[in-house]
């Protein structure tokens, strides 16, 4: 296409798009005035008047909607970071066992990965919550000298109390993501050329040392892109908290929409809170990637 043609095409396209969005916005305005809702954000400072079962910062129903949303965001962040760490630990372990020499572990981890990957996360979460926690009989499942106490009210560990909703979400999310992380780890390890394994073996370096000092450092850069996308997926999947009744950012948005009917404003808020979360994860992973690259030189 010549340059003039391109410019002409872009102008036509722009007008078409403007016309289309104009029609959409016109419809929106008509519908909003019809239902008498309008588009404003001043409801954010009004008292929320709903209570939250779980809040890390002081919160009462008389606090504003904005504060409730912030509490929800903090709750989301809490569950995302903790399940991210747990999922990485479990996933790395499973990934190592998946490529290891031990045939028993190789088979069981392969079975684990297919079962976890081929069933919906929502069913897994509900299974953890309704079967794992809520149906514990006699109210206590495990109690080891008051250090670790698992009951239908949640998990208590060294005085650190985790509610049953949070624990179910944490376990469900971590185990679901760990299967995907294990595949990333396996792919990364298998991307190291076979000659490297042969080389350290022929140098007489022990299996353990060779694996951790020679293979893993070379596989690390291959882990990073896969891990980043899995972490982003985990952050997005954490919105399924609503299924187990944990009050994360999405669940609070849902409650507010039910109370006020302000769907568009809430959608914009949710969009921005997730953009910030995604940016946070990609930035941190970028820093890790850079430090790995620097340590290699």
């Amino acid at each position, binding site marked *: *296409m010549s340059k003039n043609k*391109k410019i002409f*095409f*872009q102008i036509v*396209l*722009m007008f078409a*798009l403007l016309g289309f969005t104009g029609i*959409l916005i016109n*419809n*929106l305005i*008509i*519908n*909003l005035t*019809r239902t008498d809702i309008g588009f404003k954000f001043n409801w954010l400072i009004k008292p929320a008047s709903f209570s939250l079962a779980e809040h890390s910062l002081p919160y009462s129903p008389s606090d504003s909607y904005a504060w409730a949303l912030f509490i929800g965001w903090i709750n989301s962040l809490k569950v995302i970071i903790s399940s991210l760490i747990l999922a990485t630990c479990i996933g790395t372990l499973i990934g190592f066992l998946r490529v290891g020499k*031990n*045939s*028993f*572990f190789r088979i*069981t981890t392969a079975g684990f990965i*297919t*079962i976890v*990957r*081929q*069933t*919906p*996360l*929502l*069913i*897994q979460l*509900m*299974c953890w919550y*309704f*079967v794992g926690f809520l*149906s514990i009989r006699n109210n206590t499942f495990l109690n080891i000298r008051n250090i670790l106490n698992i009951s239908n009210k949640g998990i208590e560990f060294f005085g650190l109390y985790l509610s049953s909703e949070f624990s179910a979400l944490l376990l469900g999310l971590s185990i679901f993501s760990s299967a995907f992380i294990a595949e990333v780890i396996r792919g990364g390890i298998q991307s190291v050329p076979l000659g490297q394994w042969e080389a350290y073996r022929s140098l007489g370096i022990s299996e353990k040392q060779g694996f951790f000092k020679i293979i893993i450092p070379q596989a690390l850069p291959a882990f990073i892109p896969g891990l980043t996308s899995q972490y982003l997926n985990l952050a*997005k*999947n*954490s*919105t*399924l908290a*609503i*299924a187990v009744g944990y009050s994360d950012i*999405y669940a609070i*948005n*849902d409650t507010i*929409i039910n109370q006020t009917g302000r*769907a*568009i404003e809430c*959608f914009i808020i*949710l*969009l921005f809170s*997730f*953009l910030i979360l*995604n940016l946070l994860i990609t930035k941190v992973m970028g820093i890790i990637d850079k430090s790995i690259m620097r340590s290699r030189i």
Partner: protein
Amino acid sequence: MNNLNSNLNTNLFKKLKRFLLSKSKYNFLNFICFVISISLTFNFLTWIFKSNWKVVTSNLNLYAFGSFPINEQWRPLFWFFILLSITLITIYGPKWNWLRKNLLFGWIGTVPLGIYLLNGGFGLDTVMTRNWGGLTLTILITSCSILFSLPIGILLALCRRSSIFLIQKLSSFYIDVMRAVPLIAVLFFGQLLIPLFLPVGIEIDRVWRAIIAFTLFVSAYIAEDIRGGLQSIPKNQIEAAKSLGLNKFQINIFILIPQALRVALPAITNQLIGLFQNTSLMSILGLMELLGVSRSILANPEFIGQYIEVYIWLASVYWLFCTTMALVSKKLEQKMTINKGF
């Protein structure tokens, strides 16, 4: 005799001892794990045979068809049969040329056929969408969304590589925003916002709103996968096509897209399997698909508290379908390889 027997025994004992102790510590560990896993499987199997599966067996109809009218249930059943047969043909079918060429059209044709069979009209009684449910609805949402999102995804991927500034920026903006938002939010706001953007008087059904939301979401992911496939095509392919005198449109249709699809097929399959699993999210938003039906069954006082049976049943159904999808895609991949050709 006695001597021989004791000899055998000592031999066996020696063998066992050597197996457990002398060879290596890993063997012993293996043995312990093996015993534990055998006992766990045994416990699980005894539990399966002992527990009461009435919650599943007496509701099979509901799981499959939801509240579809009973004397019309042959329609979704017939659709299932067609889907099953076309799947079997794809996996195990003969290698006739005309069959292979038309298989794609067969797959595409199952979607309108399913909509016609479920919705009725043209000689069949009309069934309202609120009566659609169970596995039927799950498969319908999945297949419709796949059918719509593949072409949109291809188009978005091509637009993202376009040399025209505005098109490129717009499509990358759309893809990036869609990939940043969680699916449940897209579905929920799809249910809420789509009616707001439509002119007064026009209404879209809940099921169709769900399909639109799924399509919008999945097409962004598919676009990224296809873009990866497009990037893997060497530049000289385009130069060769240009020197043969093909124009841009022909290059895209005949050279780039088939090769990109072949490369991106595993990734796209993963997205589509994810789509099938994620239709379960619609149960949170009140649609009576497979999980929604199960939740209403669990709310029935007759079956209250039988979570574990229902969830194991559901998980196995989803697992079966996802594995079938993976198998079909593997077969497609084998058939699409260049060397075999058509």
